[in-house]
């Protein structure tokens, strides 16, 4: 299970403002909190700073790495921004968020994967548009897997993102994802998964409940990576419990330790 902490994203008001004011202390506080809550990677996304995304990415990566020594997930659709962030990453193996089957994007991002020895999140979409069915997604997975393998990327460094859409607008958003996970596990048993969890609950009330339950549903099918808020205790508690129930927590030690650390206290 790979947890990527999602909080350092300039579309979040407090982060956006901290970036504008160059408030490094606040950014570092959020980074430390996520790491202590159990994040394996920290996502860094400054896509809303359209006019100076490269400089902002550099500042964020440097600021975060002053206080935490865990690998970063560099998040941008712009290859220039990806490279700017990756070049400064110092700890562990960075993650590229993301590549897709869109031709220009694939060609621009592919070389960065080997250049920076990074893991890569691969979105199941291509130039034909947003996939509607699990079949659409598998078409892209097949092609992406083949092209990434041909470039020497190992299965275990691929993190497929089955594309979570809001169930409020697309009734089949949940089932499309569950089916896709199942099919990917059948055909490519050694690859991993990643996703932007909170998309699924967009537009509905009580989003936290929907997000938590979808984590359980997807974990049951085999999903093993999430971009989420690790400081959300109820979410992390759900994940530890789900892990134990799926037989993936030896002697239930992760769950028991989480309990002793007060994760389940009201």
């Amino acid at each position, binding site marked *: 299970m790979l947890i990527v902490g999602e909080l350092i994203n300039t579309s979040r008001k407090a982060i956006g403002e901290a970036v504008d004011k160059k408030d490094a202390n606040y950014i570092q506080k959020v980074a430390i909190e996520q790491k202590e809550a159990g994040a394996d990677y920290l996502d860094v996304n400054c896509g809303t700073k359209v006019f100076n995304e490269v400089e902002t990415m550099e500042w964020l990566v440097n600021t975060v790495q002053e206080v935490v020594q865990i690998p970063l997930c560099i998040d941008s659709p712009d290859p220039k921004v990806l490279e700017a962030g990756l070049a400064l990453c110092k700890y562990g193996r960075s993650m590229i968020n993301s590549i897709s089957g869109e031709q220009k994007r694939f060609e621009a991002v592919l070389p960065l994967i080997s250049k920076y020895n990074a893991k890569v999140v691969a979105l199941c979409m291509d130039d034909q548009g947003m996939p509607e069915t699990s079949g659409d997604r598998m078409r892209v997975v097949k092609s992406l897997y083949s092209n990434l393998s041909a470039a020497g990327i190992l299965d275990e460094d691929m993190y497929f993102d089955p594309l979570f859409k809001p169930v*409020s607008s697309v009734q089949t958003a949940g089932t499309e994802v569950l089916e896709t996970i199942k099919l990917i596990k059948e055909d490519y048993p050694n690859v991993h998964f990643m996703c932007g969890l909170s998309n699924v609950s967009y537009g509905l009330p009580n989003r936290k409940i929907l997000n938590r339950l979808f984590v359980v549903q997807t974990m049951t099918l085999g999903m093993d990576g999430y971009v989420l808020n690790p400081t959300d205790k109820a979410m992390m508690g759900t994940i530890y419990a789900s892990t134990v129930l799926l037989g993936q927590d030896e002697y239930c030690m992760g769950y028991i330790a989480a309990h002793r650390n007060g994760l389940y206290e009201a």
Partner: protein
Amino acid sequence: MSSLAELAQAVFQGDFRGSSVITQQLIDSGVTPMEIINQGLLAGMDIVAPKFKAGEMFVPEVMMSARALSEGMKLVKPLISDEDASKAATIVIGTVQGDLHDIGKNLVVMLLESGGFNVIDLGVDVAPDKFVAAIKEHSPKFVGLSALLTTTMMAMKETIDAIKEAGLRDQVTIMVGGAPLSQEFADQIGADVYCLDAVAAKEAAAGIVANAAR
């Protein structure tokens, strides 16, 4: 015998069967098409908008109301006089070049179409010159630009610039929307209206049309 108020309620409740039945009853009893549209159908949607903004109603409910509105419109539209029909405002809308996201844009299309607008939906990944060609072809009052990626937000600017270069800027009201956008960005690229969401887009367009009619 149902009233216009009951029709508005049916739309507000998302009762598309009720909306259909009541609309037909009102037509049969001689209520004018424009009254049915304005005081029945659109009035129902007007109840939805502030509740959605206040977080009391949610996207699926807006979709249901749009459907109820649509079912009523289907029956009334053929009865509108040519003169009134030609007043239906046209909007050319699309997701900008390089961007394939369309859920939000489709919600806007649904709301505007059901509200009586003439919607020309160009789809996704629409190049600036395709927008320009559509404006020349359809002479719309509105142009709607949607984007979900920060990389494609700049394509909005390119599209607006292309419309200016083609000498068409003054003929259209440009509305922009999408998750990464802001009022600030909309101002910077020279858009006329920034729309927070689909309901805001529909309100803005309907408001502009109503003001122009005064």
